[in-house]
């Protein structure tokens, strides 16, 4: 059984260590906040200028001046701090943020990522994604392994306009957990329960490296 989006988020949450400053992108990455293991305390960075992002406000307590980078109303927490956009990207560029989790439309076997533009169709812009992937020391991509047409999104080379080059080292999909090797190639680390290595091979257009037995992903 392929993983749901919630299960992808739950698996990624296991990668988070106590004390991390973490930037979560929009989509599956946002869900990761719901699965932070007990005893692990992290600080969420929202690139519009907040460290220490709290949960959504209670009904009636929304504050138009307090939003996250997805423009959702949120809250602060004890220890939160507010700053301007230049400082926000300053701390990202200076690698003060320990972990960045973001979505992707395509990832290549050498770690390139495309997630901001479909020429002629979608022209929303890159937001902070190019800054994040160019500077973050530790990036996990949460994405679908195959698109709705059944085509692989893990490719030898990205076909869409790039967001960043040679910057992605780990990918978690509905089918598998993979590392991207510095010499190129997706190294299969774990598979979703009941998903065969053969199916992952068929679903990965980029070079897949399989060594030994591949364990099933554990969520807890």
């Amino acid at each position, binding site marked *: 059984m392929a993983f749901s989006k919630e299960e992808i988020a739950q698996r990624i949450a296991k990668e988070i260590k106590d004390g991390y400053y973490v930037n979560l992108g929009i989509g599956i990455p946002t869900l990761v906040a719901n699965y932070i293991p007990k005893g692990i305390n992290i600080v969420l960075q*929202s*690139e*519009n*200028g*907040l460290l220490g992002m709290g*949960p*959504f*406000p*209670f*009904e*009636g*307590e*929304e*504050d*138009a*001046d*307090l*939003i*996250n*980078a*997805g*423009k*959702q*109303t*949120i809250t*602060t927490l004890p220890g939160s701090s*507010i*700053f*301007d*956009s*230049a400082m*926000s*990207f*300053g701390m*990202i*560029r200076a690698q003060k943020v320990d972990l960045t989790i973001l979505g992707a439309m395509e990832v290549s076997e050498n770690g*390139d990522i495309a997630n901001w533009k479909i020429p*002629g169709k979608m*022209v*929303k*812009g*890159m*937001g*902070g*994604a*190019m*800054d994040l992937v*160019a*500077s973050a020391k530790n990036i996990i991509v949460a994405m679908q392994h195959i698109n709705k047409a059944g085509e692989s999104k893990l490719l030898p080379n990205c076909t869409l*306009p*790039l*967001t*960043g*080059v*040679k910057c992605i080292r780990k990918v978690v999909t509905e089918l598998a957990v993979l590392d991207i090797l510095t010499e190129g190639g997706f190294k299969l680390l774990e598979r979703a329960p009941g998903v065969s290595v053969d199916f992952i091979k068929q679903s990965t257009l980029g070079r897949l490296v399989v060594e030994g037995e591949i364990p099933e992903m554990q969520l807890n």
Partner: protein
Amino acid sequence: MINKVVSGAEEAIHDISDGVTIMLGGFGLCGIPENCINALVAKKTKNLTCISNNAGVDDFGIGLMLKQRQVKKMISSYVGENAEFERQLLSGELEVDLIPQGTLATRCLAAGYGMPAIFTPAGVGTEVAEGKEIRNFDGKDYLMEYAFDADFALVKAWKGDTAGNLIFRSTSRNFNPVMAMAGKTTIAEVEELVEAGELDPDHIHTPGIYVHRIFQGKDYEKRIEQRTVRKK
């Protein structure tokens, strides 16, 4: 002392003429200079180049200026929530320069700090890098990006004083302080305008030297783009 206080948005923007470049603070609809935007909509100033992280929504913020075709060019990082914007872009009526958000903020900062350019890794190896100078520092490539050159900056603050000092509230700070520093003429609209001396100097986010005109805005709508709540 020079009088920086003006009566309202109409007076503040009186010399923003067709074809100039303006910066507008805000992230999404949070912390946007609502009064100045409405005054520009009423004045129907045309052929503007707008530097702003986002382009508003169809019926609020910069979206109102787009609807009247007042904008010749947008320089933004994310413009996803505006159907009219997308239509004008795809039909070629609107010039758009999409740039990384950190690059946008830091190009403002550079202008306010008197530095002609910055080096950033954002966009290296992508179409953003096309035609730009690349420098290698310690084995890593960086793009040279120029400081912005904007005729006017329109910013929104929470509190301000008659000396032009500004204090922002919560995440409505966003691009406002760096844009305030970057405009050749900076216009600040504030929710509460007080006499010089009433704000604690230690609490000032933007020193008044960067602010040329200031007024107390009115009728703030402060529209929420994504109202997300949890149950009690």
